[in-house]
């Protein structure tokens, strides 16, 4: 091979793209080749996308090398993250006749994807498809995870994959010597390099389908689930298990009562089970609303301790202590109390004045110590009192109203009923997040009679659902509601109190 070879590396600031570029240039130079690398670090080093560009040429006359890649003129593109591979494709640097594309399939989400209120992730499928169509040869694997298993960094597995691809005319030992010459973390880097090398030679691994873990115990109330429409079985089983875990069998039975009511309504309407399936999912979530008891329960389980240990990867001789960050407010504590007492406290300005400073504080609770653990464990034991609590009563009423609205809406338009069920997604979380979601939910539900009167009501409701998740100040939702020209007021601008004692009675 006598041609000048051109390589472009696409990484994120801090991923070691510069190290990789240096290794490659070093390999070439030690083989007697000409090598020139360059980069545009600058401000992009602070978490942005960075590009490193290398040209190498066989021994002989000095080549005239360029400082940036030209679309259609790149032999190897290395991307340290899936979307960066996509960016290289979008820049025209990956071309079918020419380019070997080596990419890590893992995702590092961009801030816009992470900060979305729902799922803001860009489509990986579109990028994967474009990579496969654009590259002469595609080497794709989770090289980040592979590096981590060898206690190394992605630059080492990427170099291994490059070596294994055979895209450059250098021997494996040439690359390994370059790693050794750099002299930093050599042992781990070499192990990761070898793993990357193997990936390049191996046939692509089949895509693993994500399978929900099977139920460990036969679900209680299994017979009732079996009588539901087939489509709803999976969620109904999960939901039943969740509610037994969350509360008890009676609570799960209540869940199935409601589900059966929806199923029979759907059957009357000639539905295919989609409404029941969606209800099985969203009803279970609503009936297992997040409260202090649930949080305390989840945080004191043995499985949780094991998960933390796995996550922090502490060596055996290192002690791990865990501390929880909680900030219960007056409202959340009162919520847990029996209804009558809770209402009395809620309406008493004096009680609020006395109790708020005692309750409403930043709390750091060490669950690895006996004191902290006992506090949360004790709170978790309040589970038995939950059905008598104010919050429980309020949520039950909200659920009833919501289900009634959904069934009503389904009678006009089954698709609209389904969208009403899906709206539960907005009602989640704790304190302000919950209040905001509930306010948005209520605002949309107020528009329901108008939506039901329109042929495209379901589609419009889906749009409103999306608008509610577009920003956390209800700006988009208010605009969307205003655009509907409904006579009801816009979505509330300020958070409503966490407890809305008047459920959506109008919907029933």
């Amino acid at each position, binding site marked *: 091979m006598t041609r000048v070879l051109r390589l472009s590396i696409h990484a994120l600031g801090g991923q070691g793209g510069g190290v990789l570029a240096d290794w490659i240039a070093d390999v070439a130079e030690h083989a007697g080749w000409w090598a020139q690398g360059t980069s545009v670090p600058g401000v992009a080093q602070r*978490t942005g996308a960075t590009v490193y560009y290398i040209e190498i040429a066989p021994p002989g*006359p000095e080549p005239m090398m360029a400082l940036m890649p030209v679309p259609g003129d790149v032999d190897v593109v290395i991307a340290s993250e899936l979307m960066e591979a996509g960016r290289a494709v979008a820049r025209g640097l990956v071309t079918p006749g020419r380019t070997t594309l080596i990419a890590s399939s893992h995702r590092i989400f961009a801030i816009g994807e992470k900060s979305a209120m729902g799922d803001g992730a860009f489509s990986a499928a579109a990028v994967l498809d474009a990579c496969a169509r654009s590259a002469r040869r595609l080497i794709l694997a989770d090289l980040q995870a592979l590096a981590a298993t060898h206690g190394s960094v992605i630059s080492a597995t990427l170099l291994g994959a490059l070596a294994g691809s055979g895209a450059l005319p250098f021997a494996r030992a040439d690359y390994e010597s370059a790693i050794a010459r750099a002299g930093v973390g050599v042992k781990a880097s070499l192990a990761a390099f070898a793993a990357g090398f193997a990936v390049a030679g191996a046939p692509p691994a089949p895509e693993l389908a994500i399978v929900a873990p099977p139920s460990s115990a036969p679900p209680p109330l299994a017979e009732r689930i079996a009588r539901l429409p087939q489509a709803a079985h999976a969620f109904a089983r999960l939901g039943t298990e969740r509610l037994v875990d969350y509360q008890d069998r009676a609570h799960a039975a209540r869940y199935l009562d409601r589900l059966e009511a929806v199923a029979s309504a759907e059957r009357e309407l000639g539905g295919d089970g989609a409404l029941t399936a969606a209800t099985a999912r969203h009803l279970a979530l609503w009936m297992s609303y997040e409260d202090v008891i649930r949080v305390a329960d*989840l945080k004191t389980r043995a499985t949780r301790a094991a998960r933390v240990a796995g996550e922090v990867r502490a060596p055996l001789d290192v002690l791990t202590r865990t501390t929880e960050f909680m900030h219960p407010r007056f409202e959340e504590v009162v919520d847990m109390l029996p209804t009558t007492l809770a209402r009395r406290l809620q309406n008493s300005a004096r009680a609020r004045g006395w109790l708020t400073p005692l309750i409403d504080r930043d709390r750091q609770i060490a669950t690895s110590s006996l004191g902290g653990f006992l506090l949360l464990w004790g709170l978790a034991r309040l589970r038995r009192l939950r059905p008598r609590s104010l919050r429980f009563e309020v949520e039950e009423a909200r659920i009833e109203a919501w289900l009634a609205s959904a069934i009503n809406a389904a009678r006009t338009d089954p698709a609209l009923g389904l969208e009403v069920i899906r709206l539960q997604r907005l009602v989640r979380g704790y304190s302000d997040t919950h209040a905001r979601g509930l306010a948005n939910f209520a605002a949309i539900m107020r528009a329901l009679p108008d939506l039901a009167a329109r042929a495209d009501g379901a589609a419009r409701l889906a749009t409103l659902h999306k608008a509610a998740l577009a920003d956390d100040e209800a700006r988009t939702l208010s605009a969307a509601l205003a655009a509907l020209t409904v006579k009801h007021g816009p979505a509330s601008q300020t958070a409503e109190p966490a407890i809305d004692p008047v459920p959506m009675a109008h919907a029933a």
Partner: protein
Amino acid sequence: MAERSFAREVERLRLGAGETFHGEGILAVTKALLQSGVSYVGGYQGAPISHLMDVFADADPLLRELGIHFEQSASEATAAAMLAASVNYPLRGAVTWKSTVGTNVASDALANVASGGVTGGALVIVGEDYGEGSSIMQERSHAFAMKSQIWLLDPRPNLGHIVDMVEHGFRLSEASNTPVMLELRIRACHMTGKFAAKDNVRPAFTLRDAMNAPVRDTDRIVLPPANFQHEQEKIARRWPAALDYIRANALNERFGPEEGELGIIVQGGLFNTLARAMELAELADGFGALGLPVLVLNVTYPLVDDEIVAFCTGKRGVLIVEEGQPAFLEDAIGAALRRHDVQAALVGKAVLPIAGEYTGAVVKAGLDAFLAEHGDRPLPAPASPPALTTAQVPARPAGFCTGCPERPVFTAMKLLMRELGPFHVSCDIGCHLFSILPPFEIGNTTMGYGLGWAGAAAFNVEGARRTISVMGDGGFWHNGLTSGVGNAVFNKSDNVLVIVDNGYSAATGGQDILSSKNAPATRSGHHRIEDAVRGVGVQWVRTVETYRIKQVKAALKDALTTPTRGPKVIIAAGECMLNRQRREKPLFAAAVKKGERRVRARFGVDPDVCTGDHSCIRLSGCPSLTVVPNPDPLREDPVAAVAQDCVGCGVCGEVAHAAILCPSFYRADLVHNASRLERGWARAQSRVIAAMQHWSDRRRLARAA
């Protein structure tokens, strides 16, 4: 201590004649300065020449050996003024900064030194931050060269050639008594390569010689009548001398055949891009043989008219490849051809974009259009569009690093805005300017380095909401102390300034400044910002820890609402996490190895407690705080997660508390080398806890059975 250490690389600066130097463009320039017998070096950091400053700092021992004085200048103006040493004495000096922003700051001193002229060679190395990756306004340094009549070198990007041009730069400066600017584009600064080294040269005439035998020449000082004389000198003497030197040393290069109907004139810095475009058009072989005559302007100011005229005479068309606007070269060449009645068609911005970076693809397209219009080549078929559009991949704006101490300042501001409503925020230059981007989206304007508070100076009327200005410690010492704080005191401002004190000039790569606490022995640090602020007359000063979000928020609220009139300054202190980690990580590892008890914290999220609203991300934006698919099959939205690179700064927990978010976050403290007593107690507690967990697990299973 800067972000990147060149301790290993600087050893290569000792190479001598007969050896080959391998390295980055920045190191090559440093080596060239040593080979040129430079006496003093100064500058102010900023991409793409931050590393030049870092190399100087790391090479300090070698510089001292050679009798070279190196300063980390307070600003670009300081650095430019340093060139005054070359006015009266045969001392060679070099200064460097980021352009055009640094050249803006330096231009007062630059204009003065250019007016009076120099005796010793004076070289300004400007790192041109233009095009991809640039963080500044897109302007040309060329305009500064023209207005002050400073010669501008734009060398072809080849290390050996850049080194030669540095050495020529000093000689050109001395031959024409004029300071010279050497323009290095961002990729050339970071380009690797090799060149034949020469011996380093100790200056024959030293700084000591100058100080012990001062020379004075009133004619070199800008004051009437000398200032009028300077203008005449520039035209009558210095300019012709420069042209003579450029011609005699063939600083501009010719490539390709001697004759041809078409030709190309290109800025030296763009030559390789042009050569690649020609290679793709099958007009070059990739080894320097070109199919068309090309004139490479390694000196872009002044233009040598007779070279241009000779090149263009007899040609049908000439393409000018000149990046940026206004098109100074194209206009000047056009005027020269008109004056000399040369009829070649002059094509530049007619086929190439008027504005924007000249990438390989852009130059190729321009070349194709030129050849189609003025040659006989048909336009090549357009390439098929990529299989993906840029809209299908997420934008990655730069942002605060993992654990950055500046992030919580803006979290506090965002929370305060929710409480008090929006206020006008005047920003500065530095990492803190990332506040204008998602997820914070805070800040109205930025007027330049250290000018954050000055940018709010007009908003100084009664009966209105106070404004908040932001300034980094870098900008504060650069000029903000006088232009911002002094100005606010003198003009009786009632507004608020937040000084983000992270201990370094962090955005430029973590260089030390006056208030740095870990400055090396060669510099004097530990000068407190609070003392300086009080020293110029601010009465209302609070110092807060950035990581204490509630504290920061309370201080901000107090400053905005207090009835006390007068300027208010909040110093938000927290060490730059990149630097802190670099400093502390090895110490931590060493202590653990020695068997000392050490605790490292990291954060985590309980995925079954998180509901996927991502409020925490919108209030933090830490790169370490990310999302993962929801493990709960009932839920749809991804949950928050803390990646392995978490440094345990604690902001997650602070945000969860300050914003009353959710109880998903936990902190895990990893205790290394715990004492036997501590271990025993932990074991005892965990046994009891495990037993209780076992009991409740059994009860739960019984419920399900």
